[in-house]
């Protein structure tokens, strides 16, 4: 069988259920592939891994992928299973924040490590400085969890609809005690978990063929996962070598992720791409990317895979 190594953006969880399902249900095998799924972690930058030859294909957020492309890692989006963005900023209501304008003077928890681009673009669009000046916001590098909100060290924290939000709820805060700003609703949604490969590899027909089969099987996995969320979550749990994930949380996460993949056949919608690029370019004095990228996506794979 042909070998494919996939580097995830984060640890094993239902966010990546489609790939685990495809592996577990033998969809990859049917396509004659042997896929190794490498979990990520807080210090794993998938673009770096692929540049170093540690993976054939990676999962990354588009802002980060495009920024890497500018830095000389020629990443190309070959498929986009997640159509919608799950990012949001969650604030405690008692901070008095009602709209984004109220952010001024507040402390916000933000993920860095290449995940800060959507936030920075949003703030740039709002015209709120992030340099700690009094009329701007105070930014904290948020760790892995939502503690800063619970401990009142931050007024708002970043969260994903499918993960951190529920941790806040689990911790005992009621939805009515929270104010939620989804990036989708704010018009600053950027594309998340997409599949990226190195540009020059695509010139190799054998590689292209492998990717076609890989995407086909992965999307089959995703659709199966959407249809069987509980079983999909269980498959993820089986693949979690840390043994730290809980069934309750993963099943819930699977349902939320399914909302983001729903309706996507894996093909990147060029309109979504253009929107993402526009948002990123609007970054004011310090834009995430400085010019409109060329050839950062292709339908070559999905065209064949979805035939």
């Amino acid at each position, binding site marked *: 069988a042909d070998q494919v190594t996939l580097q995830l953006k984060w640890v094993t969880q239902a966010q990546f259920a489609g790939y685990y399902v495809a592996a577990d249900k033998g969809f990859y095998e049917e396509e004659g592939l042997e896929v190794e799924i490498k979990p990520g972690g807080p*210090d794993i930058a998938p673009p*770096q891994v692929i540049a170093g030859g540690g993976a054939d294909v990676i999962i990354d957020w588009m802002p980060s992928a495009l920024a890497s492309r500018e830095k000389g890692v020629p990443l190309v989006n070959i498929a986009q299973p997640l159509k919608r963005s799950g990012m949001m900023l969650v604030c405690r209501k008692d901070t008095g924040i009602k709209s984004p304008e109220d952010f001024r003077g507040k402390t916000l928890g933000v993920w860095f490590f290449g995940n800060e681009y959507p936030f920075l673009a949003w703030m740039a669009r709002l015209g709120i400085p992030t340099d700690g000046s009094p009329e701007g916001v105070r930014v904290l590098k948020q760790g892995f969890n939502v503690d*800063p909100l619970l401990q009142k060290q931050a007024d708002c924290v970043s969260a994903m609809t499918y993960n951190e939000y529920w941790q806040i709820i689990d911790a005992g805060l009621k939805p009515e005690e929270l104010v939620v700003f989804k990036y989708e609703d704010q018009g600053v949604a950027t594309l998340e978990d997409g599949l990226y490969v190195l540009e020059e590899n695509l010139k190799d027909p054998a590689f292209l063929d492998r990717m076609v089969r890989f995407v086909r099987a992965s999307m089959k996995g995703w659709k199966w996962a959407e249809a069987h969320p509980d079983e999909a979550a269980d498959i993820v749990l089986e693949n979690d070598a840390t043994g730290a994930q809980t069934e309750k949380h993963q099943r819930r996460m699977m349902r939320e992720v399914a909302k983001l993949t729903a309706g996507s056949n894996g093909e990147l919608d060029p309109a979504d791409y253009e929107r993402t690029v526009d948002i990123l370019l609007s970054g004011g004095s310090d834009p995430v990317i400085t010019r409109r990228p060329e050839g950062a996506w292709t339908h070559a794979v999905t065209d064949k895979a979805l035939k």
Partner: protein
Amino acid sequence: MIGRIAQLPPLPLAAAAAALAWLALGAAHAPDGMPPWGWAATLGAWACAWALVESLARSGWRHAGLAAPAVFGLTVLFLWEAVTRGAGVPAVLLPPPSMIAERIADSWPILWADFSQTFLKAVLIGYALGCGAAVATALLIDRSEFLQRGLLPVGNMVAALPIVGVAPIMVMWFGFDWPSKAAVVVIMVFFPMLVNTVEGLKSAERMQRDLMRTYAAGYWQTMGKLRLPAAAPFMFNGLKICSTLALIGAIVAEFFGTPTVGMGFRISTEVGRMNLDMVWAEIAVAALAGSAFYGAIALIERAVTFWHPSQRR
């Protein structure tokens, strides 16, 4: 072979090394990768530099202590430059030193802000508190047989409180700013200092101790006039090891939540952004600061434990 070359005086060797290095670097910039003779020049430059260090060490020149590591360092930088350029290593994996140097020159204000946040606050304060606490604990342990049996094994447990687990907790307890990093540093340096101090306090010789007994010297007199001086070589051992640990601790702790300033913050952020030149610029600052810190402690050590055989050759 290199040994034979090293018989030559330093000057011609330096010239040869420089010339070959210049050739190699020129070749490394060739558009289609390094030609074979470029690699040969690289190896030659390396061999000459190595011989130069040997020759310097033998020369007994007064400044050999500075020149030798400098030559060694330049050699490493040169090899790094030649290999990354010559073999076309992607800059997102390992940028060449010239690129890093450029970045350092461009980013003084950021580097300084990060340095003062991480080093001047978290490292120095955490180091002082941690080493102080360790010495105090060692004295407590020494004072009482009971604590010696009870506290030491438990003190050992602090040894491996893994920074990964501790750092988020410290952020939770002490907030996002530097105090939580200082707390991590305290935990990092506590154990090495404790072990070395405890070991050092055992190192006074029997006769030296008996002498104090005949004077009916009090505990603190014996401590101040005999046991601490005798322990000093060990304690400096601990202080030296801790000086680098403290820096690692503070930087790594910043991976787990910080305000948007600090060497660790910058490193993890810029890795995510694929700005590896900035990452290495911070690493260079860290290395410089760490070496200076270590060097300062080594100088104090020399002044305080001048009498120890290890200092007297």
